[in-house]
């Protein structure tokens, strides 16, 4: 593959053709040498991975929405709507909450417009974990740092596409330059809408969530179903800076007053007595 241009890249993950094979999960682990967590049977559909974390930079969700005993046709029991599978990953947000709060500048934006955690800088304060609205980042006890999808930065630098996209058999995960992906996604959405899939929608394609997501999705249900904040909920941590400090300042003034009252009035009365 020719070297990648220094242009915004990303993922278009089309969940309507995901087969839940988890090849992406395994490819990611193989390439990034992640051991995975201790095996654990969750009895949660076919998901035994559970969440994105330091060992799981891709996580395939399984959401069962099988309608009850179907006796007639017309029930949307197939067509990608009855058993939702979605390969979740770091969104590489344009306005990245994690990057915003990181006190050490360990989290940076790369030449490919991706969000990257520099392992040699991170000191493991975990502020980014509390900030990421997608529950993406995990802490690794062994390295003492936090981890998430790197968008295979090392592969990108060598002109290779990310391991997960490469492994995805159905091309549910499409990697490419962001503008190309946007075009592909629009076409796909239009097709689905024409076919009558009213719930089909793009998530992160426009700027309504965090200024746009470099890893964006085609969903067959509303974002919340997949643990994704909807546009109204997609808020940055920094929204609370001004009110937070303001509240603190007001309290400080009131506290000051309360203190002054206590000591000042006492001084008066004390001296007069």
């Amino acid at each position, binding site marked *: 593959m020719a070297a990648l241009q220094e242009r915004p890249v990303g993922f278009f993950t089309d969940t309507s053709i995901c087969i839940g094979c988890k090849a992406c999960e395994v490819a990611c682990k193989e390439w990034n040498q992640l051991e995975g967590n201790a095996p654990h049977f969750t009895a949660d559909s076919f998901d035994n991975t559970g*969440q994105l*974390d330091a060992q799981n930079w891709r996580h395939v969700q399984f959401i069962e929405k099988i309608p009850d005993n179907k006796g007639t046709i017309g029930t949307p029991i197939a067509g990608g709507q009855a058993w939702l599978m979605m390969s979740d990953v770091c969104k590489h947000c344009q306005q990245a*909450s994690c990057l*915003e*709060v*990181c*006190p*050490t*500048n360990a989290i*940076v934006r790369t030449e490919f417009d991706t969000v990257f955690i520099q392992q*040699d*800088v*991170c*000191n*493991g*304060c*975990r*502020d980014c*974990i*509390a*900030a*990421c*609205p*997608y*529950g993406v980042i*995990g*802490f*690794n006890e062994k390295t*003492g*740092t936090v981890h998430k999808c790197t968008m295979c930065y090392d592969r990108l630098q060598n002109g290779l596409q990310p391991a997960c996209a490469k492994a995805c058999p159905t091309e549910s995960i499409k990697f490419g330059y962001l503008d190309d992906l946007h075009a592909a996604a629009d076409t796909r959405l239009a097709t689905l809408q024409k076919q009558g899939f009213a719930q089909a929608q793009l998530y992160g394609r426009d700027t309504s969530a965090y200024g746009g997501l470099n890893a964006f999705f085609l969903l067959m249900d509303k974002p*919340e179903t997949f643990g994704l*904040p*909807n546009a*109204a*909920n997609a*808020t940055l941590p*920094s*929204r*609370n*800076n001004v009110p*937070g*400090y303001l*509240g*603190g300042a*007001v*309290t*400080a003034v*009131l*506290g*000051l007053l*309360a*203190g*002054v*009252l*206590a*000591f*000042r009035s*006492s*001084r008066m009365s*004390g001296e007069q007595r």
Partner: protein
Amino acid sequence: MPEHFAVAPNWEWWILAYFFFGGIAGGTYAIGTLIRLFGAPADQGAARTAFLVSFIALIPCPIFLSVDLGQPVRFWHMLVDTSAGGPSFKYWSPMSVGSWALLLFGVFSFVSFLGALGQSGTSALSGVGRWLAGAAGAAWSVIGSGLGFFIAGYTGVLLAVSNEGVWSDAGWVLGGMFLASALSGSAALLLLLWRGRHDAQAGTVTRLEIADRNFVILEAILILLFLASVAAAGTIGKLLGALLVLWLLVLIGLAAPFTARGARMGAPAVASPLLALLGVLALRALVIFGGQL
């Protein structure tokens, strides 16, 4: 209603300890300054205690914080940008600002600590004591107590500036609430330390008690505001249930200063500020753990 999908950073006991001690360090410094500026001469002993306590409470703070890091030795990455070079400072990141504030406050608290020692008779430090007693010293304490307020309160803002349920839902109150409770806790601690002393002036104790009660009222109002905003966000469930016993401690802590009215010596006198402090701890625990449930 906002929905949250952020996961827990697993900030636990070290962070709780830091929030508590940081609050005390900041709160006592501020109270010390208040007494320094507005208190009676007879109260100045209490001011000295406040400055002493402030720094002592501050000492473990950076340790707690560093131990909590995954890479404790890299604590300095908070201040120095190791990848781009130069200082690492992000005004929009409370943790970044807090790191600098802690450093600066450490300087103020340390100098005031030395001054208090000097004023209390450590002759080698009497110069510092004298300088602090002057106008420049007053300015120093004012700036220091500004930082103290910050240390006492920014931890709340730090939690709020996230996408965690509870924390970010009470974005505008957490900072104030922590600050108020830091003040009430600090007053309680000073009461505890001051009340039993042979040279304690009854007036000083009374005034500290009044201050404590004032702070508690402020704190209670903020707690109510906090509950209201969390309830409005629909995340209050996290704070009830398993954590109910902590609420009990908070309530007792809030009530304690009032029950102790009139008591001067003996068990109740010690118990009430201790309970108040426990309440302060419980409040922080509630918020820290509740947000991560």
